[in-house]
């Protein structure tokens, strides 16, 4: 049964890891602006398409 002690300690370490990830996320400002990223994503496709086009142009300039 003493394996439970080890398991609980391991689980605490894992949980602590997630907590520190959360703290990092807050401190790095990921929750400061929750509105703009939702709009930014709308145009991601467009940008990629454009980059692809450019890459195509560079590969085989016509």
């Amino acid at each position, binding site marked *: 049964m003493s394996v439970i002690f080890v398991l*609980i300690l391991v689980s605490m370490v894992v*949980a602590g890891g997630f*907590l520190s990830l959360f703290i990092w996320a807050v*401190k790095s400002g990921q*929750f400061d602006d929750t509105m703009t990223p939702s709009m930014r994503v709308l145009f991601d496709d467009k940008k990629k398409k454009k980059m692809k086009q450019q890459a195509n142009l560079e590969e085989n300039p016509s």
Partner: protein
Amino acid sequence: MIQVEEKVLCHHCGEECRDEHIYYDNRDFCCVGCKSIYELFQEDDLKELYQSRNKSNPHLRGKYDFLRNDEIKEQLLNFQSADHSIIHLDLPDIHCSSCVYVLENLNEFHDGIIQTKVNFMKRAAEVHFDPRYISLEELAILLSSIGYPPQFNAADGLKKGKSKRNRISLKIGVAAFCFGNIMLLSFPEYLGIKDQMSHDFDRFFSYLNLFLVIPAFFFSGKEYFISAYKGLKRSFVNIDVPIALGMAILFLRSAYEIISATGAGYMDSLAGLIFFLLIGKWFQNKTYENLSFDRDYKSYFPLAVLKRDGDQEVPVPIQQVKEGDEIIIRNQEIIPADAVLLSDSANIDYSFVTGEQRAVKMNKGDHIYAGGRQVGERIYLKVTKETSQSYLTSLWNSDTFLQKKDSVSMIDRISKYFTIAIFSIAIVASVCWYFIDPSQIWLVSTSVLIVACPCALALSAPFTHGNTMRILGRNRFYLKSAEVAEKLTNVNTIVFDKTGTITTAGDHRVTYSGTAMKSLEKSILKGMTANSTHPLSKRIYDSLEGVELLRVDDFKEVVGKGISAVFGKKVYKLGSSSWTMHNNKVREGSVFFSENDQLIGSFQVTNYYRPGLTKMVGDLSLLKYDLELLSGDNHQEEKVLKNILPQLRSMLFKQKPEDKLNYVKSLQQQRHRVLMLGDGLNDAGALSQSDVGIAVAEDVSAFSPACDAIIEGASVTKLSEFLQYVTEAKKIVIASFIISFLYNVVGLSFAVSGWLTPVFAAVLMPLSSITVVAFTTIAGNLLARKLKL
């Protein structure tokens, strides 16, 4: 005049075109961003787009020349090095997702821009740029040319600290982590598993709990102790005193039980308590980050002004403008300091200060107060007082703006009695137990303090007020903080400003009476009014939409009388009855139009009152509010107002800013609790003096004076519903107080009889909090539905 009611939807984003309306390629667009995106899909090259646009905007040169000043630059830039600068810019024209796209692709417009990051809610962007390729001035010109002129004002450069919300979410996160883990580790205790095997686990789990509660207690719960200490230092018992007491007792008793191996402790309850309290605080503190409630004069004034230095014109920061300096004000610029006019004439629009749109003609040597806006050619001025000493800004430095309104909230008033009651119960219980079983005294008295911890009590007001703020915000009435919701319930007198508050700021109704005008006469009239700067002419001009403009000769404008012009040997006059030679009885507010001294007709220019105003004022007077009106305008509208708003107790006209302030003060001395609605800087003093000052804004992201709440113009007429709502919401708070008292009675009876177990406490505390939260939220939403908010 016909009001355009038809909604025009943007071709790109589908939103209604409200302020700006661009017609391009047979399609409607709501902003430059949307139009750019549209063009982009056609052309697919942003650079070309910019170049074509940049050429068409030569007048932008010079507008931002103050950004060349190193001192100002230093103030504005967040970071600068030889090849990388960062600046935060306020771009009030951001309003849809296309704007975000265009701005974030700014590097395609110009190679000197490294990266842009838009914050949509704050209408701001962080721009990284390379100063070797693009200067700050060029950046500002680039942004204006694509339709996003950055806003600079004197309050900039005072860099803002990190937002508080961040810290509270961090605390909630830590508390939630501790709470969840402690609950898991307390499960054996809850299930009552008691055998020899689990004994070792119990000890191990208890110590883990003790270890886990430390961050929750010392990091997340810290501020309750600080606040309680601060309160006690001022010999004032706020709600945080019983909370801090309960938390400290919980912690100490649990730690003692764990270390002495006499019990499992109440660590789960403690962590849960902190978690719930912080959630309440977070809910209440959700504020409108994108709105500013604390603007002072610095936000209105420009950052810099052109100063004449010998033959040169140099931009200087307005803080450095000294008495005797000669400054240059260009078209549409704001005069930053009291000054004497050196040029021959000037046309000063004080709508910024007074809220009333009226350009005033000034002559050489006239004294001009700071805050006016020059309309027309550039003028030269000699500064007589520094900005901070000016007439307008000194109003700000007066006591009204410095004193902090200290009001004791309902919850803090109750908490005093609550604390006394808890202590009495604990003492009585201890005395009783002294006779029954002295060994139990310690256990019982701590149990009383633990279970009586006013968690539910502390949560009821934040959740109700937080909910109120959300519901009002949905109706475009934005409160500065939850305290304002409570203050609103105590108001008994409402003071309205006229222009911009009960009338719409820009719109005027121009009615014509007389013989029907021919299109030629209309065109002549338009040509005449186009030359005049008088506000009435401007309004008549605006009403002649779609009429062809004719050039008139020999234009004359006589101040106080009217204008005249010649067209085809006929003299046309527009103005007062004596000026137009028409001997009718003089009516104020009428403008007469004549041809060769023969009357054609007259114009009646009246303010446009908000629809629903009469009903609102009627409702408010039924709710027993005293209603008053303060206007900076003249008596012209008095009769109309009396007619449509018979419930007004008094109306005062020609009120200067300090008159308004003093009037509110005198009302307060007569024990009125005043709610003031106003716009414009002229109301700023009165707004700040009143118990609740509400700024009326047509566009909430545009500037508004310092206030407790901001309301969007169209929502003003819903005021009676808003006030009904907050009054009812107060009843919800009281009802939830009763609920939490009932829980306390149950908890206390267990504590007094010595039966309080950790499991019981762990169930009772969250249960009471959740009941209160659910009750206030559901009741608040039902109430909103009933009032159709």
